[in-house]
């Protein structure tokens, strides 16, 4: 089902984040070894490091690519409490002799956090050049570069305080004009008594303020990652949450009264699915661009692919694994005979598993 390419990352410590750029043609990895690597494909379609540099003096937790309209820009956040914005120098002719590390320059360092910065995300393009950061002291900070040509000037626009330490955040990706921007944030606070671990914030254009509109009480386990799906014209948002289980929420943002964003009734949150298939902590969730495919990764060392069918039910479509022998094997998992098939008359065939050697399968 899958072609697997093992990439020698050569990071000296754990890789915490890997990200495609907007077009999916480049990727960047960041690691506890305090370096960021940017990868491009060579003529043989293999990933090669085009730049590698020491970006922080602590573990680098996450990175985010800006929309290419703003240039080749990466933001990184680190255990060293800072966020850095990096830009690739494309103006200078890159000669083969030029050391690759020189290609990315630090445009700014944001030092407002007093604790480890756990997540950083560029906002969707239509909101401008905005950067949201989440830190372990429970504060979301939103920065703006008022002049998109000058990446060294970022002003702190908003500080939103949550009571709990934050581990991740995500911007809503809706292009729907009447939807106010949303940010979802997750906390990795481990005590279940502290209540819901996912918070939804909404921006009100009138008040020029972010306010918490919802705490998702269904998720009380520590949250490791959170991701809004690209809305892709849908009438609702889909939010994937990596916690002890994988949660998929559908958020219906009510249309505001009088075409004025942010004045409508409350957000409708509906739990669409909850999966325990990883049998352990889910660490990452990520979406494809149409929001039709979700990948989740867990402590079991596997990545699961989920897809939604026409009944808006989610099913596991595949499991990919890299095993301990470092020769990854892929298994294909059939979807369970779920109750939802009752209403989907054409779903008739299941495949129970892969058959490695069809000739050895006994006939009945």
């Amino acid at each position, binding site marked *: 089902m899958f072609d697997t390419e*093992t990439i020698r990352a050569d990071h000296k410590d754990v890789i915490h984040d890997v990200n495609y750029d907007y077009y999916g043609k480049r990727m960047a990895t960041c690691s506890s070894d305090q370096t960021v690597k940017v990868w491009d494909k060579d003529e043989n379609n293999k990933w090669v490091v085009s730049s590698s540099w020491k970006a922080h003096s602590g573990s680098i937790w996450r990175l985010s690519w800006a929309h290419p309209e703003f240039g080749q820009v990466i933001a990184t956040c680190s255990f060293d409490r800072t966020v850095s914005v990096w830009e690739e120098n494309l103006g200078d002719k890159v000669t083969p002799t030029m050391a690759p590390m020189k290609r990315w320059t630090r445009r700014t360092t944001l030092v407002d956090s007093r604790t480890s910065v756990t997540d950083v995300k560029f906002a969707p393009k239509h909101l401008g050049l905005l950067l949201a950061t989440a830190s372990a002291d429970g504060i979301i900070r939103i920065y703006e570069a008022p002049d998109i040509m000058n990446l060294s000037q970022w002003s702190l626009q908003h500080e939103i305080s949550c009571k709990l330490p934050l581990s991740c955040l995500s911007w809503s990706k809706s292009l729907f004009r009447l939807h106010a921007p949303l940010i979802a944030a997750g906390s990795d606070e481990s005590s279940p008594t502290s209540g819901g671990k996912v918070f939804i914030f909404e921006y009100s254009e009138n008040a020029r303020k972010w306010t918490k509109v919802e705490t998702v009480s269904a998720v009380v386990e520590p949250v490791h990652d959170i991701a809004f799906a690209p809305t892709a014209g849908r009438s609702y948002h889909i939010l994937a949450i990596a916690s002890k289980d994988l949660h998929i929420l559908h958020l219906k943002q009510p249309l505001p009264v009088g075409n004025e964003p942010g004045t409508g009734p409350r957000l409708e949150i509906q739990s669409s699915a909850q999966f325990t298939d990883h049998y352990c902590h889910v660490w990452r969730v990520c979406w494809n661009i149409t929001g039709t495919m979700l990948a989740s990764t867990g402590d079991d060392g596997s990545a699961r692919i989920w897809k939604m069918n026409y009944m808006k039910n989610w099913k596991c479509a595949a499991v*990919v694994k890299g095993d301990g022998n470092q020769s990854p094997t892929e298994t294909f998992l059939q979807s369970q005979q779920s109750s939802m098939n009752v209403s989907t008359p054409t779903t008739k065939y299941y495949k129970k598993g892969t058959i490695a050697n069809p000739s050895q399968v006994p006939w009945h």
Partner: protein
Amino acid sequence: MAQSSTTWIRICQDGHANGLALNRDCTQIAVAGRSLLKIFSIEYDGFTEVCNMRGGKNQNLSYSSNDVAWSTLDHNILATAATNGVVSVWDLSKFGRQKQLLVYNEHERTAHTVTFHSSEPNLLLSGSQDGTIKCFDLRLDKSVNTYFSNSESVRDVKFSPHSTNTFAAVSENGTVQLWDIRKSDKCTLQFTAHSEPIYTCDWHPNKNWLATGSRDKQIKVWNMEGKASSEYTIHTIAAVGRVKWRPDRLHHIASCAVVVDYSIHIWDIRRPFIPFASFNEHTNITTGIAWKGSDPHVLLSASKDSTIFKHAFKDATYPVLKANPQGASLNCKGELLYAYKIKPVTMTQSTSRNNLMSQKSKAPVEKDQFHLAQSQLYAFTMHPLNTAYGGDSNKPIMLKDFECFIGCAKEYILNGKKLSDICEHNASISKKYGKHSAAILWNYMKAIYGSLHLKTNKIDARTTLSSQSHLINNRRLTQVQNTRDNAENQKNEGEESDLEGNPNDDLKLLDFLSPKSGQQKPCFNVAEPLIFEKSQITFENVKCLRDGFLYVGPHDFTKDWSIPETALHNLQAARPQPEISAEQRQEPSPPPDPPSTLKINVVPTIPMWEPHRVMADCLTLQADVGDIQTSLSILIAMNESRSNLPIEDVVYENWFHSYVEQLHNHQLWNEATRIINLSWIRSAREVNQQSTTVHTNCGECGRPLVGSVGWYCGKCKSAETSKCSVCHLVVRGLYAWCQGCSHGGHLEHMKQWFANRKNCPKCGHLCEYE
């Protein structure tokens, strides 16, 4: 031994601690700082003040200490290094002023550090800002030896635990020196360890290792056997103030910072980037740390926040537990990148039976494997999932999601043809790329809106068996009867169309559409009265009907992935064929799986058959499941008819932007532009008008060509540079010019000119247009 818990005490009101020391038995702690020298006894659940040596009016500068040391043998002897350079020795057994036993006022500048020899109770070393190290014998009232470090400042000195006469000194110029205590003329070894000032050093209790901490944020571990060599380097997040090896753990070392970071970190030197454990209790800079004797589980610390802490290891935080060990990313081609931390499972446990065992025993092992942190990075490329039929051959070819997307984006025809042709073409394209659901939608659209004479028919089917006109409970079902009108009736039909969706008008409509009697309104001169034959359908709700009818089959990926062909056949078999409905105008047969047959003799409700509503629902459903491409393409192709759909403009706008964004994601610029140009929503069309201004400069003087006419330079007072070099007329439209000589002209003329020439027509410059 019961593990003690974390406790703390506020040591003073205003001053703060600069250093701390433990007595030999680790029962008492001495804290020295600005106007501060106190002794606390360490108890199980806290601290108790034992002695405060800043008594009375005795408050000269020698009481502001940088460092304190406790004699390694004598309970009562302490030494302090003061900020004015005075090294004092204290005797706790004395009273009052007598406590200050000895005062060595020999350093010219601040004394940074004092330390006692581990076996010679009378030997005391001090290091100072004046660049000297002095050795004192407590039996004498002045120093016995002075060692000149050749640097401006000695920050730390430590006796080696491995060799009685050796001590190490570190200084602000980044060098480490080894001295033999008996030879004050020359150090035995000197090397540069850091590029910035070294603030601290510590000898490993067992190995001949020296750890140094520097302002360059690094802790380095040096193997001091023979010539010093660097064994490990730890990258911390701030300038390192103190380091202390953890007893009983070969590879662990504790550190605190002098700026920024208030935490105490315990590192495994084999994993130099992330602390093994951290204590985050202090609210200001930590200035002194010490392990409680040989107990690796208790750490004492003093801080500028005027507290001392006894940290129990069980209360430590482990940053690595909060760190996400995995990363994943999907791109628009459905490729998955996946990085994950490899579980440190040894290969000996590879048999499956042992695996269970090893997993259970992993938890305790895990901490020892802390340093074995490695990630593996994979790129997964999915195999083609969609079955498609290329061209005429019925041989299925496998395509990936994104290939279908790109194919459809490129090959769909959206305007410029008859709607039915567009639909037909696009249906075949959809089919070609395996988007069977989209193909059926296209066909459906052709059936509803495609035929010309139906163009203005807004309602083509509305009948009822019942004269009851309540709209309630219309989910239960019924009979559907459809009429189709002749072209002659277009006008009237068009009028009636406005009734759609308006209940009151529905009533009116239903009144005259009494199907049993066939009393059509006279003008409804129906040629083919009942296109859609009566048929009884039973189902649970209308939505289900819709789904069953148009629902083109749950695009069930699992099925597609496993047995594509069969699934396809099944899809086609199970699905009502829209072509049939188009040609024969027959209501689809009941869904394959009628949940339960429900027969109602008295049909209570009105059958609703609203093609626009269904169409809108289909498009919305298609969008909701992530196929905005089909929805929007159909909408564009529908042209005027789309005004019938009960969908709001803001939704269209959203779809436009979303689809354009997806096209951009795939770098399909031309297709995106086509979509934008075909948009009927202003805000979507405007996208193409943004950032389209080109600023031009005069080719003669270089000034920007501003003003009402773009071709006239206000400075040169001429339009010379806007003229074509070939025909000498002002160019309106496409202007091509050489960037070397700035001459140019009509694109066509320039092309002709350069077809067989290389030089500029005006100045002879070797332009060499590509």
